[in-house]
C-alpha cells in the first residue's frame, strides 16, 4: 500500500515538473518563432542599434535603440534611487533597530513588496507626476525621472527585505569577533557583517534589477511613452516593456510590427537570462578543497 502511494506521489511530482518544463520551452519557442522573422527584414544590428522606431510608417522603421536605452535608463535610475535607501534601511533594521521595532518593520516592508505595480502606477500618475511637473515647471510630469522614482520605490522593499535577511542571518559570533578585536559598531557592520552577507546583498540587487527592467505597468503609466533618447531626466521615455504592451493591440498577427514586438521580448528574455545567470554564479557555493 505504502509503496503504491509513494510511487503515485513520485509520478505526480514528475509530471508536474515535466509540465513546467514544457510550458517554459513553449514560451521560449513561441517568442523566438514569432520574433526571429523580423531579422529577414532588418539585421539584428540595425534592430538593436539604430534609433528609428516607426512601426506603422511606410516603409516602417524598427530600430529599437531608443526603447532599449529607455529600459536601461529607467532601470538605472530606479536602482540609483533604490540602492542607498534600501541598503540603508536593511542595515538599520538588521543591525541598529531594537528587536521590537524590527518585529514591526520587517512585515511592513514585506507587505510593501506585495503591492501590485498598477497601484504604484496610479500613485505616480495621480500624485507624483503633477507634483514633479509643478516643482520643476515641466510640460509633463510623465517622464524618466518620475518613472525611475516610482520604480525605485517599488523595488526598495524587495532589495531591502532580501538584503536584510542576508545580514541578519550572519551569525552573532561574527559580530562578537569583530567587536572583540577593537572594532566599533559601524566598522563591524561595514567590514564584517556586510562582507559576510554580500552574496545575499548582490542577489537582492540583481532581483531588484530584474524586477525593474521587466516592469511594464508602471512605465506604461508614468514614463510618458516617447520613443526617443532622453536628453534630460525630465523627458519622456519608452522602455521595451511598455512598447510591447501598448502596441500589441495595433498589430496584425504575423506582420512585421508583430514580429518586432516579439523581437523586443527576445531582448528582454536575454537580459533576464543573463541577470539570472549572474545571480546563479554569485550564489553557487565556492568549491573548497
Amino acid at each position, binding site marked *: 500500500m505504502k509503496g503504491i502511494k509513494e510511487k503515485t506521489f513520485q509520478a505526480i511530482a514528475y509530471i508536474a515538473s515535466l509540465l513546467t518544463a514544457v510550458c517554459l520551452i513553449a514560451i521560449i519557442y513561441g517568442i523566438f518563432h514569432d520574433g526571429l522573422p523580423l531579422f529577414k527584414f532588418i539585421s539584428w544590428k540595425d534592430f538593436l542599434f539604430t534609433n528609428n522606431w516607426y512601426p506603422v510608417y511606410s516603409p516602417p522603421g524598427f530600430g529599437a535603440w531608443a526603447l532599449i536605452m529607455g529600459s536601461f535608463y529607467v532601470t538605472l535610475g530606479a536602482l540609483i534611487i533604490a540602492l542607498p535607501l534600501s541598503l540603508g534601511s536593511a542595515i538599520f533594521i538588521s543591525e541598529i533597530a531594537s528587536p521590537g521595532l524590527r518585529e514591526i518593520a520587517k512585515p511592513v516592508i514585506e507587505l510593501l513588496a506585495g503591492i501590485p505595480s498598477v497601484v504604484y502606477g496610479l500613485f505616480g500618475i495621480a500624485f507624483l507626476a503633477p507634483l514633479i511637473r509643478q516643482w520643476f515647471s515641466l510640460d509633463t510630469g510623465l517622464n524618466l525621472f518620475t518613472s525611475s522614482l516610482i520604480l525605485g520605490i517599488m523595488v526598495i522593499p524587495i532589495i531591502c527585505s532580501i538584503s536584510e535577511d542576508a545580514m541578519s542571518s550572519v551569525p552573532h559570533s561574527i559580530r562578537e569577533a*569583530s*567587536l572583540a*578585536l*577593537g*572594532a566599533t559598531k559601524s566598522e563591524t557592520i561595514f*567590514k564584517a557583517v556586510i*562582507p*559576510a552577507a554580500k552574496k545575499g546583498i548582490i542577489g537582492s540587487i540583481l532581483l531588484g534589477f530584474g524586477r525593474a527592467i521587466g516592469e511594464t505597468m508602471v512605465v506604461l503609466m508614468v514614463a510618458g511613452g516617447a520613443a526617443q533618447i532622453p536628453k534630460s531626466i525630465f523627458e519622456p521615455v519608452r522602455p521595451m516593456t511598455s512598447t510591447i504592451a501598448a502596441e500589441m493591440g495595433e498589430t496584425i498577427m504575423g506582420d512585421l510590427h508583430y514580429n518586432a514586438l516579439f523581437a523586443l521580448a527576445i531582448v528582454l528574455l536575454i537580459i533576464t537570462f543573463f541577470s539570472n545567470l549572474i545571480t546563479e554564479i554569485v550564489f553557487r557555493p565556492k568549491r*573548497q578543497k
Partner: protein
Amino acid sequence: MVERQIWTSNLNLWFGKNQILHNINLEAYKNHITAIIGPSGCGKSTLLRCFNRMNDPIPFMELTGKVYLDGKDIYAPKTDVYAVRASVGMVFQKPNPFPKSIYNNVAYGLQIQGKYSKSEIKDRVEESLKAAWLWDEVKDRLHHSAMSLSGGQQQRLCIARALANKPKVLLLDEPTSALDPQSTAKIEELCLALKNSVTILIVTHNVAQAGRIADYTAFLYLGELVEFEKTEQLFTVPKDKRTEAYLTGVFG
C-alpha cells in the same frame, strides 16, 4: 615575585534584575595562566567578558566595582573601549573566523586601527600566525578562505587574529570545548608557550585542563568567587567545601 596585570575589585554585575556576579576580587598575573572553573551557568563567561568590556552591548547590563588593566580602571569614564578590546584579546568557545581569507582574518584588527602600512600588516600577520603555531600549515594558502580550515586550525587562527593586536592579555572562553582531543592538546601546549609574552585568563569546564596548564585557578560558584589559589594548592588542599565537592565531581 608575581606582578598583577589585570584584576577586579569588588566587581558586581547585573543583567536586569538578576545579579550574575557577586563582589568578585580576582587577579591575573603577568606571564601566568589563570583558569576560571565552575559549573555551567555560574557566570564564568560573564566574568571573563568584564575584562574586555564585551558585556557592554548587552541591554540592561549594570556593573559596579572596578577592573584594572596595569593599574588603570578600564570602566573609568572617557576610557577608549576599542583600545581596551585591542589590548585584551578574546577567543570564543566556538571558533568564529570571518568568512574571509586566512590573511584577512589575521589582518582585520590592524586594518581596523588604520595606522599600519601594508608591509607592516604583512609582517605582523606572519608573526602572529607563527606565534599561534599555524604558519607552517597555512603559509602556502594565506588567501584561501578561513572556512576551509579544520576546527582546531580555525581556533588557532582566532588566537592568531587576537595576537595580531599585540594584546597584553588573552581571554579564552572554553576554547577547546568544540575540539577533538588532539587539537585540544595542541592548544593547551600553545597556551603554555604563549604565556611568556601574554597574560592568559582561561575559562574551562574541564577541571583537568585547568590542572594541566593553569598556574592559578579560581573556582566560581553561583556568581561568587569561592576560592582563588595556586592551581596545585586548590587541587590538593581546597579550603572550601564547595570547591572540594566540585573537584571531586559531586556537582557540575
